[in-house]
């Protein structure tokens, strides 16, 4: 076999020709020219909601020539938390992953900064609420972007008829559909009286005091309404304060009017309580109402979602956002950011909100006026106040404003509800406070 030797001249000529050809050749963009992108989104409980997200993502993918893979990871059994922990440890996995509340801070060192897309998004969609800033910013770095799907306010969902019958309160007058709330009188005293009246009438409020998030969120919002903070923003323990004592007294009174088994309630218990027709009020996003629409329409048409009662230090409602994050080991960060920006365009968010029947709640100021909330029913206007359209309550999360890594422990260990239950079950106030202080001291470790 003869082998032709390439001369220096031939080599130079060939290189020049190939370079010229490459430079002048027309750029042909393939179907997936911009690479691949994988994402783990929260698996929505509303049938059809995932399909709309898939459609929005596919539209973007087609336009941007990106091959996308979407996994919807359920939060049932904390599968999403296990996925986050596994991917963080392996430093491999999806490019985009949806994290609940505390997890962006817990994984802050491994997340791609999002300032470059959050700043234009804020300019476009308005400010995000304070809870999102608290949960998604670390040392000036945006750890993720607030997600429309799954983000929610856990406000009161009240039976119009039962509150009127037992407590003589017209909740629709307090929170009229289509106009500003007239809820100045809706305070913690009025709330307690209503709880007592409904208890006497045989339809107690269904407010959990278990260790899951619905119970913890409600306790946290009331604690803030009394001005209490177990740990302040600087990390100082503030448990033995008058505000915390007042809050415990309030809960002790309230618990006497709740079903006796509330310390064992989980996030499904309050939904069941409302749907069964037993309860006059629960603290939940409109998911319980949506289930009632399907399973107990006569209950659903009497439900009204509205604001929290105001306490001595203000009116607070729990807001639980999901946050879309991008791992810093992701190979396609620019495509990930482009997709996340696309998902937070008004048209995308509006479609997602509509698909969820109004359950999903974007964190941006200008994205809380979609017609879905005004039109959903029965009864029509039941969700009008759900997105907090007049900002008459401050959106918060239990255990805030403690530094998020400490707050996460207070939240996940349900320290707040445990304090209420201990005190209610007869433990001395100071002993409960001592116990809480010792617990929180343990959460301070770094």
């Amino acid at each position, binding site marked *: 076999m003869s082998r032709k030797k390439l001369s220096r001249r031939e080599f130079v000529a060939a290189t020049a020709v190939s370079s010229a050809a490459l430079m002048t050749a027309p750029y042909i963009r393939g179907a997936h020219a911009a690479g691949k992108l994988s994402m783990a989104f929260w698996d929505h409980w509303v049938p059809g909601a995932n399909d709309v997200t898939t459609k929005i993502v596919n539209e973007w993918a087609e336009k941007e020539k990106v091959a996308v893979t979407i996994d919807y990871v359920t939060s049932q059994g*904390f599968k999403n938390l296990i996925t986050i922990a596994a991917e963080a440890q392996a430093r491999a996995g999806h490019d985009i992953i949806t994290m609940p509340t505390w997890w962006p801070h817990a994984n802050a060192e491994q997340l791609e900064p999002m300032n470059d897309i959050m700043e234009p998004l804020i300019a476009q969609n308005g400010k995000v609420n304070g809870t999102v800033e608290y949960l998604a910013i670390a040392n000036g770095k945006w750890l993720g972007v607030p997600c429309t799907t799954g983000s929610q306010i856990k406000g009161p969902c009240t039976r119009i008829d039962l509150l009127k019958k037992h407590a003589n309160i017209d909740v629709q007058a307090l929170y009229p559909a289509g106009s500003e709330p007239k809820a100045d009188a809706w305070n913690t005293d009025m709330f307690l009286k209503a709880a007592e009246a409904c208890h006497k009438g045989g339809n107690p409020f269904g407010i959990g005091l278990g260790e899951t998030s619905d119970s913890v969120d409600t306790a946290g919002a009331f604690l803030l309404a009394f001005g209490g903070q177990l740990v302040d923003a600087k990390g100082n323990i503030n448990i033995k304060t008058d505000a915390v004592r007042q809050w415990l007294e309030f809960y002790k009174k309230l618990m006497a009017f709740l079903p006796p088994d509330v310390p064992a309630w989980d996030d499904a218990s309050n939904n069941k*309580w409302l749907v069964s027709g037993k309860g006059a009020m629960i603290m939940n996003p409109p998911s319980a109402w949506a289930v009632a629409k399907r399973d107990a329409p006569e209950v659903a048409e009497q439900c009204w979602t509205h604001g929290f009662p105001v306490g001595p230090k203000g009116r607070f409602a729990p807001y639980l956002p999901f946050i879309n994050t991008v791992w810093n080991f992701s190979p396609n960060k620019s495509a990930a950011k482009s997709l996340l920006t696309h998902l937070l365009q008004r048209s995308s968010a509006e479609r997602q909100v509509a698909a969820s029947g109004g359950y999903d709640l974007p964190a941006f100021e200008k994205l809380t006026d979609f017609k879905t909330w005004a039109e959903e029913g029965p009864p029509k206007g039941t969700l009008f106040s759900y997105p907090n359209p007049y900002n008459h309550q401050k959106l918060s999360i239990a255990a805030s404003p403690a530094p998020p890594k400490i707050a996460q422990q207070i939240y996940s260990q349900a320290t707040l509800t445990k304090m209420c*239950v201990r005190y209610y079950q007869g433990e001395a106030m100071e002993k409960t406070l001592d116990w809480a202080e010792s617990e929180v001291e343990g959460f301070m470790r770094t």
Partner: protein
Amino acid sequence: MADVVINSASQPVVARARPRKVSPVRRFFQQKSTIAFFMALPLILLIGLLVIYPAFYSIHLATLNKSMQRFVGFGNFKFLFTRETFWMVVQQSCIFAITAVIFKALIGFIAAHFVHNIPSAKQRIWRGMLLVPWVIPPAMSTLAWLWLFDPSYSAFNYILAYFGIGPIPWTGDAYWARFSVILVNIWYGAPFFLILYLAALKSVPEQLYEAAAIDGCNWWQRIWFITLPMMRNIIAITVLFSLIVTFANFDIVRILTAGGPLDKTHLFATWSFKVGIEGGDIPLGASVSLFMFPILAIAATFILRDINQRGNEA
């Protein structure tokens, strides 16, 4: 070794055959122990991958600080020793495992006797039925129990209400919640004891009972002096095995009470999950789960030593 070679043409010739040279590698692969090793290799690899590697990895995790960036040695363990909840979990795990194993063994023992005395034709159906709780995946059967114990709509309370009893806060009160998780664990685990004790009962020679009957032994004496001594080893093994599994239980408590109320039903595994995964403190969660190891190792050492001693005596 000599082979006899027959020369077909003339007289037989006794030839001294040269021994076949077997290479050391071939000899190595022909050894029984090597074959046994290779046959067990898939399992060894599986155990290495799914048990040993995670175990060492969790030891590594347990030595890191909360943000997993710094080596803290035994810092997490020292911290745990200062926590009230940790000691409560230790106490609860012991109460849960010991109570459940005692009752499982007792119920298994009694039920095994009943089944043993049933005519063999009907025994199969009883054995099959009594094994059902153990065959159903515990996560699934515990869900059924969860509905029976539901705080607001308990089927048990519904029935008890007819007799003017209750409602009982099955999962709402700390002591009832402990009772409930132990009850479900017994329900699930007793058939395991039943089947092993039944096998052990069948292996006790009938002559011993006949001799005892001639000696005038009563029912209790037959149990005490024949059955129990003959079953002693199997009882020890089952108790050890069940103790390990019950100590490490996760699914029943997780589904039924998630450790509540007020952490009063947490076991090592559930608290480890709560601290590590839910609380985002993986090193501390790993430390909690590792704490099971020395407790179980001590129990295993005592029980196995006892079995060995009796084996040697025999």
